[in-house]
């Protein structure tokens, strides 16, 4: 388990760096008359990722000398708050941006331990509504079309 703590993150960073190097090598080359004495667009990202790989070696050495502390598993509230982002994406994509925001607020209030229903409902309704009115009426920003915005704009 300790070796996993030492090597996992450096390994993931190394994989990321190698993937970026491979992607960079596939970038188009610019004609010499445009680039001149400068460098090709692929050169800079490759340089960065090589530098990253060097730092990964140092990170492994550092981790070996002083292994990272074990990370406590986050509580239910954290993982479910992250999962709510998926809900937010799906509801925004298929229903409405503001309904999605209200849904996340509702879920988050409950997950984070608010048990007074009137407070949950008030936060769920008043927050998106007031922000919507501020941005729509004062800042004149148009929001993406959806169930609620279609009704509002029509």
């Amino acid at each position, binding site marked *: 388990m300790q070796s996993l703590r030492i090597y996992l*993150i450096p390994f993931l*960073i190394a994989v990321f760096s190698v993937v*970026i190097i491979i*992607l*960079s090598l596939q*970038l*188009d080359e*610019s004609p010499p008359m*445009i*680039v*001149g*004495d*400068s*460098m090709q*667009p*692929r050169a*800079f*990202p490759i340089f*960065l*990722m090589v*530098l*990253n790989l060097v*730092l*990964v070696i*140092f*990170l492994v050495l*550092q981790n070996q000398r002083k292994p*990272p502390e074990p*990370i406590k598993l*986050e*509580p239910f*509230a*954290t993982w479910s*708050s*992250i999962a709510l*982002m998926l809900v*937010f*994406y799906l509801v*925004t994509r298929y229903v409405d*941006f503001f309904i999605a*925001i209200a849904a*996340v*607020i509702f879920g*988050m*209030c409950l997950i*984070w*331990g*608010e048990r007074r229903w009137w*407070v949950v409902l008030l*936060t769920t309704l008043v*927050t*998106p509504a007031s*922000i919507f009115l501020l*941005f729509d009426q004062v*800042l004149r*920003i*148009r*929001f*993406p079309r959806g169930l609620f915005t279609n009704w509002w704009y029509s």
Partner: protein
Amino acid sequence: MTEAISAMALVFLDPYLIGLIFLTTILGVVIGVLPGLGATTGAALLLPFTLTMEPVHAITVLATIYVAATFAGSITAILINTPGTSAAAATTFDGFPLAQRGEAGRALGIAVVSSTVGGIFSVIILCIAAPLLARVAYQFRPPEYFALTLFGLSMLASISAGGAIKNLIGGIFGVWLATIGAEKSTSIERFMFGNYELYEGLSFVPVMIGLFALSELFVQSKTVNSVMNRVAIKAVKLPTKEDYKKIWATILRSCGIGTFIGILPAEGATVASMIGYSEARRWSKNKDEFGKGAIEGIAGAESANNAATGGAMVPTMVLGIPGSGTTAIILVGLMVHGLRPGPYLFTEQVGTVYQIFGAMLLANFMFLGMGLYAAKYFARISLVPPAILWPIVFALSVIGAYSLSSSLLDVWIAVIFGIVGFFARRHGFAVAPIAVGLILGEMVEINLQNSLKMFEGDWWLIFTQPLAALFLVLAFLGLCGPFIFSKLVK
């Protein structure tokens, strides 16, 4: 010079600006006392709201939030042993023990006075140092700028959170993020994966909102069930003559330390307050009192962290290199409003620049008044349940991300960077280096390209330029910074 003074004076005579600074100071103090929010998150959340304002008003709002929230972090640090901002962490060491002894009012009084002196001192230094540095910066050409940005990135190694190697990895990740989109000189598309909304590159605003606001939301979800010990307070007390005798030297020393640390690229109020605190302890005749309620400890930490705010604005405004996480957001604010940070800002926009400085000065006076007369009311705000506060932060974050260019892609970018930032922090990586890397990334690449063109491909000629060589030496020293800082803190 006359134009600069009149621009600063205008702030004190313009009722609209005074009203704006007053309201923003209140907002900044509220943001500062809410544990977890802090100056950086607050500035990230408010940035989209400033888009429709005049440039000077927008930057005034962000700068005022910066100074007010940095001060306000001390209120919760003293009363509930939870720093409202990371910059107030050192204030808890002696502030909370003093409050537990029944002297919360005295602790807050010392924090308010020290913060005000630190803040005013740093704005004065900002007014003097910024134009002088701008004069030097006029001589900068691409090699100097390239070396300077490398110096800025190397300083990431010494940011307190994370650790040198992890911070540098974060910084490089940030610089890589800046390469997404069409390459500036050849228009060749990089890492866009067919998404043409990324042609101009990643927008700074959603990335900042994700890294600072949404990642903090996930971090705060861990503290849902934590119970805070709160010390009651009747009124804030101004320091007595004896108190002043004890702390004046500490305040002056910390003002110098804080301003200097703030000026260093990528260093901020957190590092400044830690060093201010440890230096206060080192020079004190009553070392044993530290940790048990020493007023010098509070004064040392508070004057240093507020002095860092003005200091951090120097490289931000003059060189376009952020001095801290919050100034990274102010820098984005400047860019969004078409004010290109750099030495020419001091010739082309003198009025705007000095109005911003004047606003920072006025904000310091305002939080002095608010701290002395309303701290106990502000402290009550910290009792807002996280289950109400953070869902509202979520709503403000996603709408803020959307509003910049009315793009849902920006919302997804903010959400993705919120999750990335959370996991990065979970594994000990600070998010500020990613933000600084993203801002400096384009500057590094363009100036390297232009330097190569200048020297016809002979990159080593960069080292023959005296100023560039100086910055590269400083960059090397910057990489050794963590060791020097750890020695100093010890």
